[in-house]
């Protein structure tokens, strides 16, 4: 798989072409040759513009494909932010918690942990967020779904750094215990 990075040469070239156009204008040397050069530069810009748009379209398709995988993965996955609030939940997670998406996203994950397990759950979660414990860990806890009885589940959690913001999140894999 490639990395999905936008090639630097694209931005460098477009910047150079733009600079050339500005210099021509400043020098007021708009004779026929200069005009032709500028037209060519603009055509080149159009080509690069289309290339970047093509890249955006490709990334959108790929992201949709991966988003589908996340959404319909056979395992229950949740992404929580630094404050422990759920940012994303897939279909299997909603099935497990027996709750609609809007009752889960934006809420604290601890709301779905049985009261007796909440302190331990929070301690471990905070330890992972502040780096006091390993980058990933697993343990069992009782889930309290929105309806019905508690369920013993295996929690596997790993930190997921978010590149630009630098704010970390947690990715939770939750499986009912066998």
């Amino acid at each position, binding site marked *: 798989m490639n990395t999905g990075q*936008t090639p630097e040469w694209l931005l460098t070239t477009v910047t150079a072409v733009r600079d050339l156009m*500005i210099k021509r204008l400043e020098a007021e040397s708009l004779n026929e040759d200069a005009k032709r050069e500028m037209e060519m530069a603009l055509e080149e810009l159009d080509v690069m513009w289309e290339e970047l748009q093509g890249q955006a379209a490709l*990334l959108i398709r790929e*992201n949709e494909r*991966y988003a589908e995988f996340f959404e319909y*993965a*056979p395992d229950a996955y949740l992404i929580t932010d630094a404050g422990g609030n759920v940012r994303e939940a897939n279909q299997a997670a909603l099935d497990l918690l027996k709750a609609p998406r809007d009752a889960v996203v934006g809420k604290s994950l601890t709301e779905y942990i049985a009261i007796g397990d909440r302190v331990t759950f929070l301690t471990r979660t905070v330890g992972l967020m502040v780096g006091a414990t390993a980058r990933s860990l697993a343990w069992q806890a009782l889930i309290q779904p929105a309806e019905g009885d508690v369920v013993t589940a295996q929690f596997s959690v790993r930190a*997921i750094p978010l590149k630009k913001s630098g704010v970390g999140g947690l990715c939770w894999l939750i499986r009912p215990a066998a």
Partner: protein
Amino acid sequence: MASDIMDLTVMWLGLRAHVDQLAEERQQYVDFFEQSPEAYVVTDLDGTIRELNGAATDILQKRRGYLRGKPLTVMVALDHRREFRRRMLGLAERQSDQRSWRSVVIAAGERIEVTFTARPIERRDGGLCWLLQAVQ
């Protein structure tokens, strides 16, 4: 002309920022899929492999390039294929709620018992998301 250039520049930078954001989002998805210790395979409804992660290639003992585009059933032992297909089609056609079953794959010449769990993709052309777990 100068204002046209400015407009062009603003548009270019906007599109560039958008592409960077998409690329970052894609990388996060790739990391999520690739770095998962769980073995995942995504197939069409007929079982043709679209994508699989590193943990899945570890179980199946085949290169990703070899497996993409092939039916998942080619990895299933001959004596288990009919049963595997029956269950897979039952799930793909929504005639069965049975999402998890054991089967046998042939990996590096060895018979390995694997639990297959699948979930239908309920979008566009559909498909199946699979979890493969080698039975200890």
